[in-house]
């Protein structure tokens, strides 16, 4: 589903240099210290950065020069990234049509998604009237409505307290399983990674230095992961 072929990005003194593949339905946790290149790698896959060299293949197509909106990718940002002047319903509907000129069928889809994640009664509220967990749910709803096979999660749970974090993680887990999404999630927290993902990439200085299955990691962590932990 994701094939990074000797992709290289240079930003000032920092260089990202990766070659990696992710099979359909795989859920990868991207761990590493701040500045190791997690966000740069997500930006490369999302299309916010174009590689200086190499290729990015997504869902069987060469996406190297493809603009972000055309990529088979949806993104969950760190703080939910909701528009404060739009209602919950409109924030979610942006995932379907940015101009918000929805057909009746599309309106119904938005309503269904909101009902599905338990935000139906809050459709007409503004983000400021929601709790942090509810705002995260709206962002998840928008991501689901995009209906793309790849989901990029850019530390989306970092600002949530443990209770809300578990709640939103559970929601993403359930929906991703139901839709067979391929996920790459940047995180600082191994527990989040264990809960959602089945594979782990550890990044250091712009390179993936460890690519291992998640199962059994706690019992016998490889040296690189043990050092990072």
């Amino acid at each position, binding site marked *: 589903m994701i094939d990074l072929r000797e992709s290289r990005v240079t930003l000032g003194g920092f260089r990202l240099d990766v070659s990696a593949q992710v099979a359909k339905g795989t859920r990868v946790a991207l761990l590493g210290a701040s500045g190791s290149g997690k966000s740069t790698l997500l930006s490369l896959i999302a299309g916010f950065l174009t590689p200086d060299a190499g290729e990015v293949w997504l869902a069987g197509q060469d996406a190297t020069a493809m603009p972000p909106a055309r990529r088979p990718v949806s*993104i969950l940002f760190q703080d939910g*990234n909701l528009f404060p002047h739009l209602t919950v319903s409109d924030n979610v509907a942006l995932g379907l049509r940015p101009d918000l000129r929805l057909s009746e069928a599309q309106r119904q889809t938005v309503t269904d998604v909101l009902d599905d994640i338990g935000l139906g009664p809050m459709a007409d509220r503004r983000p400021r009237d929601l709790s942090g967990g509810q705002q995260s749910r709206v962002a998840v709803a928008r991501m689901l409505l995009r209906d793309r096979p790849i989901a990029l999660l850019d530390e989306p749970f970092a600002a949530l307290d443990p209770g809300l974090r578990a709640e939103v993680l559970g929601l993403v887990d359930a929906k991703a399983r139901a839709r067979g999404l391929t996920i790459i999630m940047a995180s600082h927290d191994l527990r989040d990674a264990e809960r959602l993902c089945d594979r782990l990439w550890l990044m250091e200085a712009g390179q993936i230095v460890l690519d291992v299955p998640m199962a059994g990691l706690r019992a016998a962590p490889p040296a690189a992961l043990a050092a990072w932990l």
Partner: protein
Amino acid sequence: MAIRAQPVSGLRGAGIFACALVLCATLGPLVAVAVRAEAPGGLGPADWAAIRFTLIQAALSAVFATLLAVPVARALARRRFPGRGALITLLGAPFLLPVIVAVLGLLAVFGRNGWVNHGLIAVGLAPIDIYGLPGVVLAHVFLNLPLAVRLLLQAWLAVPSERIRLAASLGFRPADMRRHIETALLWETLPGLLLLIFLICTTSFAVALILGGGPRATTVELAIYQAFRFEFDLGRAALLGLVQVALCLGAGALAFRFVRLARFGGGLDRAPHPWPGDSAARRVADGVVLLLATVFLLLPLAAVAAKGVAPLPGLPPHVWEAAARSVAVALVSACLALALALPIAAFIARRTASGIVEAIGALGIAVSPLVIGTGAFILLFPLADPARLALPVTGAINALVALPFLLRALVPEMRSAMALYGPLAEALGMTAAQRLRHAILPRLKRPLGFGAGLAAAFSMGDLGVIALFSAPGQGTLPLEMYRLMGSYRTDDAQGAALLLMALTLAVFWLFDRSGRVHD
């Protein structure tokens, strides 16, 4: 975890003293003006015309400067190109420029014998006349466009890059960007910006002095000057001063309520991002907008430089003496502004409800320097020869004018330094002086340098207070330049303009640079 800003108790007394000083220096002259003023019925038709003209020119200037700034700021926000940072700095130059120099530059380009009229005549069109309302508005747009662009650019760059990335990933087209991002941004920013420029233009004196005048183009400030200087009618000057105070306080109160200023210089070095919905046509349009803005803002400066070079070496000695006086006044003004700003900023930063202190600090922008000057003259006249106090009073009043800008630059850094180091300093048992030296001042170097530069530049270019007070042989460089223009010694005036421009930019650069040493 939220950290409460910790008090710097030693600065508290200094903060209260500085606030009291600012209150006395602004309200004292205002009270003197109020006591001396004629009854409100004393306003004649000419005075009402001046009030009307002041409001009309300020409103038109605010609207044009703001509307023109929108496409320029948008182009700067969504484009990255070599020299962009330098262009942003250069476009800010007119804000620092002495008004009289700016007006001379505009006359060289748009005046009767200016480059534009030469071009119009050459192609058989009628020349334009910029004296009166068009010229006053043109000059105000020229002087305030950089401020408007800078504030709008800050607002644009304050949009989180995640929001722009989300828009790109959702496939926003230009219309969607306008609807969901830019409209909300402008709705938040424009009212305050309009009011701020309106306020600045109501207190503008030098522009009206040179490009206005006569019954149809006299501002209240100019009317005060005329009543003062030509008729020595202190009662009428004071009454007009009260009118000016009412205008400024009205606009100032509204501006204080609506203006949301970001920190100066903030957000200019964010990582580049592709702007969603971009196209070749939009790139060309942005390029044209930036080119036109650059030409409009830099051509008058180029004209001043081009026309001033030849006469510069032959300037009469009294112009050089005036230049030395201007530099001295600017240095005093900068030091005074810093001495006031530092304790007031500390006072504001250590409290959560600091509205009153902030309002006191902002008085300088809401009260006309000419009115304070008039009040100071009324107060000082019985005690001493005001002409002998012209330079100190000019320095002091310009320090008050610069104070709001300094506070805007200092307070956020002061707050963050206190939040960051306050608990540590508390735990280490540091004294107020030690905190100031080790924790606060190192963090404030940049805004202190910038603010001092701003105060010095404002003071260098002042042609309001000094015009009220000065006697022959006591003038600063802007006043000498105005006298040269009035006596039709155009070459010498152009040389003096170049000297004034160079000195103003130099003192600003030196102060600003000193704040960046070892960065």
